[in-house]
Every structure is written in C-alpha cells, then in structure tokens.
C-alpha cells in the first residue's frame, strides 16, 4: 500500500525532522569515553549542541573541524588532523566518533581514507578508537543518521570469538529512562545486555563534584567489542532499514542471531519483546513484569470509555510513530494521522502490519512538515496530538492537548525521564493520554466537576 505524500509546497515549512549529523552525535554520546567530532563548519556542532542540550539539560560537547573558506577549497584533511589532536589533548577520549556534514560530503572529502592515513602515522599519545560515519544532511533524517552511526560504532569495534552470555540490544532513539528500564528488564531475566548505544547516564546524569570533560556513562568499548560474541541481537524499529542495521552486520559477520522487532510500545508490541527475551534466555517473564502488565491492562479497562474512538495526530521518528499507533489502536483510539518528516516508504505498511483493522481510517504521511500536518488535519477532528514539543503550536491553535513524547521536548522539564517502552512506558503514556482527554473535557465543561 502506498504512503500518502504531500507535494503541494516545494519548500519545507517547519520541518518534522532534523539532520543526520544530530542522530550521529546522539548515538556517539552513548559510548563510554566518547566525544563526537563533526567534519564541517563550526555552526553544525553548535546548533546540534544547543538542540540536544535544550532537551537533555546536560552538557553536550561536540567538536568541529571548523572549516574555513580555504578548507572548503583545498580540502579538510589537515583541519581534521588538527581537530583530532586538539580533541585528544583536551578531552583524552577513549573513542572519537567522526561524522561528516553536508559540506564535507559535497566537496567530496574521503574521510575514511584520511582516517586510514592517520592510523598509519605516529600519534603521541596514540589515537583512541575511532569510528566514522557518513551523514550528509541532504540525505535522510536524524533517525537514519542515528541508525547508520550505531552500525558504524559496531562495525569499527565488534570482534568475534566464543559465545558469551550476553544479548545485544539496539533500541534506536529512546529516552535515558527507557534505557534504564531495558537494563532492569534484562537484569530481571538474568541476562546481561550490551546496549548500543546507551546514553542513559551521559545525557541524564547527577550533579557533579567537579567538571567532567566527558560525562561518565555510556557503553564501554570492550562491551561493544563483545557484541560479536553475544547470544543474540534484538533491534527495535519497524521502519528502519533491516539490511543495513547493526544487527544485520553482526549477523552476517559473526553469526549472531538477530531478532528485529518494532519498538515495544503498548501491550502487544511489548509482549513480542518479552516473548523474544523468553526465547533467548529460556526463562519465563519474571513475576514483577507480569504484574506490571496486569496492572496496565486493568488500567486500560478502568479508562477505556474515556479514550474510545478518540482521534489522535501522531508524528515524529517513524519507528516511534508506529509504536504509538499500536498503543492507540489497542485501547480503541484512532491514530487518524501518522506523520513523519522522514521518508522510508514503510510507514503505512508498518502501521497496518500490526493493526490491519485501522485500514483506510489512518492517513500516513511521510516527508511531511508541521505546516503540512496542520493543513491536512483540517477536517480530521483530532482530539489530541502526540509527539515532540515542536507540535505545540498546532495543538495550541487546534485547542487540543499535546502529549509530549520522544525528542525533542524543548518546552518542559523531564523529557529524558519519559518512559515510552514496555508495560511501564505504556502505563505512563496511557495515563497521560487518558488524563489529557479528561482534562480537556473538564476544562471545556461549564460545571467543572471535581469528580468523574
């Protein structure tokens, strides 16, 4: 089934996506001792820092090779060398993640070649581990940049060897709280996960005793090396390219079996994740999580009338949108519009795969912007909006609640603490969705009951 696209405006008006290098920096941030280095103009790193800092409220240092006019003409190899040297001196990183920008790609920089040359040279101190990813902002979105970077990290480090009792978890773009919860689930199953990446501590850490050049946390390099020896890989993402994913690489290079799932958002999708864990570990879902599931369903029952037939606009990264659509469908809500700035060509199919009943009642929009979302929403009579804080203007104009999820949440405290995944995440999301609807009814009521 084809995905509807909007072609009425040539220009993008209020983009529902950001650029690939941001996704790269976000992924690199989840490697222990890592610093990101963008090969391009100074502005790219500064803008991305500002965008990430405003969501995570944590320091985010991203170095730049700071192109000048002559760099753009004569090439950036020397700038990159100098940038590496300076980053090493100032940050003493264990890992430098290098991502290209549109400028470097357009002038045809062979960054992989530069790095090969650098590795042959004598560096004092020696070069740390390096990974390089090609992320021109004219190709794909931050989500594609993120997935490509996870693959590049694994590609640069993973090693084979005898199997060990770990599972690889490549969860995609999720919140620090989601990472913590995934680790808790794995621990309860008695299995050690290797998360790539894991920015739960680096992007949601405590106050410090002293300034850290690189925030503590992230997946240690040795663990990433060990991904080639794990029992299995679980990767989330219903729309991301499964041929080029990190899990695909580990499967083909080291024979690590791969379980590709959608993001476990809502009961049905989470059941599949727990079933996968049961299959890999040979253990039953621990009682604690069964109980959490039980309470979630009990809550669905308690609130089902408040949400039934309500119409939601959902937007953001496609994998997240597909997951949210599944949650809405299982409680009887209609994700009347599912929208994303990305264009994978798989959004509609991925939604319908899990929820065939939605059929023609869902409008799936790829390569759409916020102006387009708002224009298409006319006549859809939405009751609420679910997505990042960038949808606030349209929710405000429509006079309906915005349930803030995903990235970025620039207008609230606590974005990094939103749990989206699993029974716990579904519980939190469902409470907020139901309460958002109840509150808008309450506020519109002349009576103003304090009892429902």
């Amino acid at each position, binding site marked *: 089934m084809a995905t509807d696209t909007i072609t009425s405006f040539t220009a993008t008006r209020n983009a529902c996506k950001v650029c690939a290098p941001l996704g790269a920096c976000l992924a690199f941030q989840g490697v222990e001792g890592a610093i990101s280095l963008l090969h391009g103009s100074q502005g790219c790193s*500064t803008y991305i820092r500002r965008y990430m800092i*405003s969501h995570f409220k944590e320091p985010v240092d991203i170095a730049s090779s700071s192109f000048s006019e002559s760099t753009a003409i004569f090439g950036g190899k020397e700038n990159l060398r100098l940038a590496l040297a300076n980053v090493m001196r100032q*940050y003493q990183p264990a890992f430098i993640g290098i991502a290209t920008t549109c400028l470097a790609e357009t002038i045809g920089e062979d960054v992989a070649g530069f790095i090969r040359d650098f590795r042959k040279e004598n560096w004092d101190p020696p070069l740390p581990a390096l990974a390089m990813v090609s992320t021109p902002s004219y190709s794909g979105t931050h989500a594609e940049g993120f997935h490509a970077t996870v693959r590049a990290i694994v590609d640069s480090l993973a090693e084979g060897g005898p199997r060990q009792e770990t599972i690889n978890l490549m969860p995609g773009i999720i919140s620090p709280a989601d990472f913590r919860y995934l680790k808790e689930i794995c621990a309860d199953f008695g299995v050690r996960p290797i998360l790539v990446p894991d920015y739960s501590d680096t992007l949601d850490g405590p106050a410090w005793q002293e300034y850290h050049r690189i925030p503590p946390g992230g997946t240690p390099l040795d663990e990433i090396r060990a991904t080639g020896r794990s029992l299995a890989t679980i990767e989330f993402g219903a729309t991301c390219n499964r041929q080029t994913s990190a899990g695909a690489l580990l499967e083909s290079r080291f024979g690590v079996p791969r379980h590709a799932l959608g993001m476990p958002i809502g009961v049905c999708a989470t059941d599949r994740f727990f079933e996968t864990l049961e299959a890999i570990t040979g253990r039953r879902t621990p009682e604690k999580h069964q109980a959490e599931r039980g309470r979630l369903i009990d809550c669905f029952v308690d609130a089902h009338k408040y949400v039934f037939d309500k119409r939601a606009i959902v937007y953001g990264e496609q994998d997240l949108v597909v997951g949210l659509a599944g949650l809405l469908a299982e409680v009887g809500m209609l994700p009347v519009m599912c929208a994303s700035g990305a264009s994978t060509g798989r959004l509609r199919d991925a939604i319908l795969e899990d929820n065939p009943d939605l059929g023609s009642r869902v409008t799936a929009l790829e390569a759409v912007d916020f102006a387009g979302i708002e224009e298409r929403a006319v006549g859809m009579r939405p009751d609420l909006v679910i997505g990042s804080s960038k949808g606030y203007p349209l929710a405000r104009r429509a006079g309906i609640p915005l349930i803030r999820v995903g990235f970025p949440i620039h207008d609230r405290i606590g974005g990094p603490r939103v749990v989206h995944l699993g029974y716990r995440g579904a519980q939190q999301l469902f409470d907020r969705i139901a309460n958002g609807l109840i509150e808008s009814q309450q506020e519109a009521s002349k009576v103003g009951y304090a009892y429902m």
Partner: protein
Amino acid sequence: MLEILDSRKAQIHRTGAAPFDMQCEKQSLAGSVSQRACVFCGSRVVLYPIADAVHLVHGPVGCAAYTWDIRGALSSGPELHRMSFTTDLGEKDVIFGGEKKLYRALLELIDAYKPKAAFVYSTCIVGIIGDDVNAICKRVSAERGIPVLQVESEGFKGSKKDGYRAACETLFKIVGTGPTEGISPRSINILGDFNLAGETWMIRKYYERMGVEVVATITGDGRIDAIRRAHGAALNVVQCSGSMIHLAKMMEERYGIPTLRVSYFGVEDMSRSLYEVAEHFQDAAMLDLARKMVAEEVTTLLPELRRYREALQGKRAAIYTGGAFKAFSLVRSLRTLGMKTVVAGSQTGNRDDYQLLRELCDEGTILVDDTNPIELSKFVEEQRVDLIIGGVKERPIAYKLGIGFCDHNHERKEALAGFEGMLNFAREVYSSVMSPVWKLVPRRQRAIAVPSPQVGEGRDQGKEPFADRQLADQLSAPGHHVVVVPHEGIGATECEPPSTMQPN
C-alpha cells in the same frame, strides 16, 4: 589540571597580570569545542525578527530546523519570522543543483504568505553546488514585485561576525527605497535591539516619551516598509554594536546619518542612552523630559532593587556573551547589584572591546575570547563563581557544577533591557543565586565546608549605602546628568539639576 591548547593561550588574559596582548577575531580552532556558531547563525540571528518577510534557508534541512522559532523576538503584527522555511535540499538537488527548487519554493511561499520581502540564506553547500542564488532572487523579485534578497551566509566563510556583516549588507539594499517625507528632524532608528520579550517596544516608548520619532527598529519588531524609510532618520542609535555597526557605518557614509553606540542594559547605560540622544539633538526640552523619565523610573526601581542587592552583595559572577558590548553593561549591572565580575568573555569581541572590559573589571578577572566548555568550567571553578550569565550552551556547565545561571541570550523570554528589565534581571539573578537547591548539590556542599574568602569582602562592601562607589562615580560623571544620592539606605538616582525634585 586545566590544559589550555597552545593556540588558545593568547585568547585568554588575566587582568592586572602581564602586558595586555589579547588576541581575538580569529577563526575558531579546529577541535576546540567553540561556543560560537557560524556565518549563517550570525546572519540568521540579525535578520530573524523581521516579521513580515519570508526567511528561506537554502540548503539541507538542518540549518532551518535548528533555528525554527527558537528566539524570543516578538512582533506586534505579522509573525512570519516564526516560520522555518527551507528548500530542504536532497541528494538529487546537490547533484543537479537547487536553483529550480529555490525558484519554485520562493514563488509558492510569496504567493501563499504575501510577505513584504524575502530573504534567501545561502548555507554551506550552496556556493559549492554552483547555484546562482542572486539570479534567482532577481528573477523572482521582478516577477513578484517585492525585494528578494540573497544573504551570503555560507557557514564556513568566516565567523559569526561575518554573518552579521552579510545581514547588514542585505539590509542596506532595502534601506533607501522608501519615502522619507514627514519624518521629524528629531528622529532615530533603533539598531541592534531584537525585541526579545518586547524590549524594543519598551525602548521605543522611552524615546517617544522624550519626543523622538522612531523611524525603524532594526530588526526588533522589524518591518520592511520601515527599513525602507530608515535613511530618513536623523540618527542611528546602535546597540549590540557587533551585529549592527556595519549597517550604521554604511548609512553614515551614504546618507550622512551619525551613529550613537548605546546599551540598554542596566540603570546607568539605559539612562545614558536616553541622555545622549537628547544631547545629540541639543534639545533642552527633550533632555528635561529624559531626566524626568529617568527620575521617575529610577525612583520606583531602586527601592525594589534593594532587597536583591542586600542578598547578592559580594557574590561573584562569570559572563560569557555573544558580543562584547553586552558584557560591559552586564559588568555594570552586576555592580549595581553589589556583585563582582570575575570571569568575562565573548564569542566575537575585538581588541578594543577587551581593552575596555579589562579597564572595567577588577584586578584578577579572567578575560576570554571564543572560549570552550573545558576552559569555562575550569575558570568558573577556580574563581568560585556564584553565577554564570550566558546562553543555552553555558547553562548545563553552570548547573552541573551547582552554579546559578542567568540566560542572557536570544532564546530568553524575559525582558532584561531598560529600567523594568533591570528589575527582571535582578530578580532572575536573585532567584538563581539564592535558591536553596545549591545546598544539596555535591560540589557546593564541599564549598560550604570550606569558608570562602569572598564572603568577608562582600560584607565590607555592604556597609556603603547603595553604594557602589564606582557606580556613583559613573552616574555623576561630568556630561552625564545623573547623580546617586542616598535614599532610605539604598540611594536613588536623580536627574541633575532636579528642578522639581529635591533629594531626600
């Protein structure tokens, strides 16, 4: 141990030490995590508040996405500036060129949004893929009858400052294209205020109360038609000189409009901005109106500031701003609050700026140009600051270390200029510095255990009523018709000679 990169050492200076030989206006060092952005950022920030123009970013999606509706620049009418338009170039456009897409995008946006002008920002790759943006702009301008102007803001072609310049060049093409009939000889343009949280409105009102006509506000609450007429003004009053002085200079050369550099931050600088305009027009009545207004504003303000000043006396601050001119005002404003600036720097200051900053600050202050997070964090730790004033990128450095923070960047939603702004500033500084949360923060707990030397200094200073001697001296300096007199233990600023009011 802080290691300063060798190539950065000359961009740091400790006042009182060594001869002053500070370097600045350099391209950011590769690999140093500069707090600066790029040329595009400089242009975008300057033109952003023009609310009846289409701002189209020609390039891949990032540059437009990161600058969508992030600034607190308000408009009294249209709000086109809050839209983020981009040609969102894809792989095919990069290979085959983006001209056709740009052309179509412009026509559609102009037809749909009916702007008074369109700005087309060139991003990094535009020159490299060979798009003739100027030709497209001319063509669309001819077809639609509005100015369609290229902003030459390719990110790598210099620093943020070059972006300011490119924006000024673009604005200069609009200036001079409108009628100037009926403009008063007592008229000004307000340059370099961006109407964050309505600050331009506030400033405009002050000048209007003095009987000055404001022709154009560039670019706060900016309108194309007003900018077209800007050459009819008798004086350009320029704040944030880093960004707008180039436009003022060009207007001075072509239209003979003199330039006055001002700042609206802090009581002193705000008052001086009004007096100097009156002095420029050599209008005694206007000067009198200005004095009355200052007296009125200041007598309400100062008693309110008292509570804050008592609490903040002797606290130590670090300032890191985009332009250096703002830093001067902040040093003075902090002094008004009894605070001491111990680290000061900017992204784009020049040598003269740092020379002045050096004179303004106490001995031992660390001055930095184009610093990075590692340096900044070490300087604020070493100087034991209680407050950092900066932007979004400095905020987490402050918070992680348990230091108060005041946002003085374009993202802010709080008016900090003018007399009312000074009170907001005091309240914001106070509410961060005095928050009890610091008592729970690990680094501050450690600091509390070791008594800090500056506490005593602060108390000593506190003995003088409102009483920063330097403030009093500055306000009563010859040529500035302001004096500070004690008033209920805190003092009041009065006009001199106060014909209708006598100091208590």
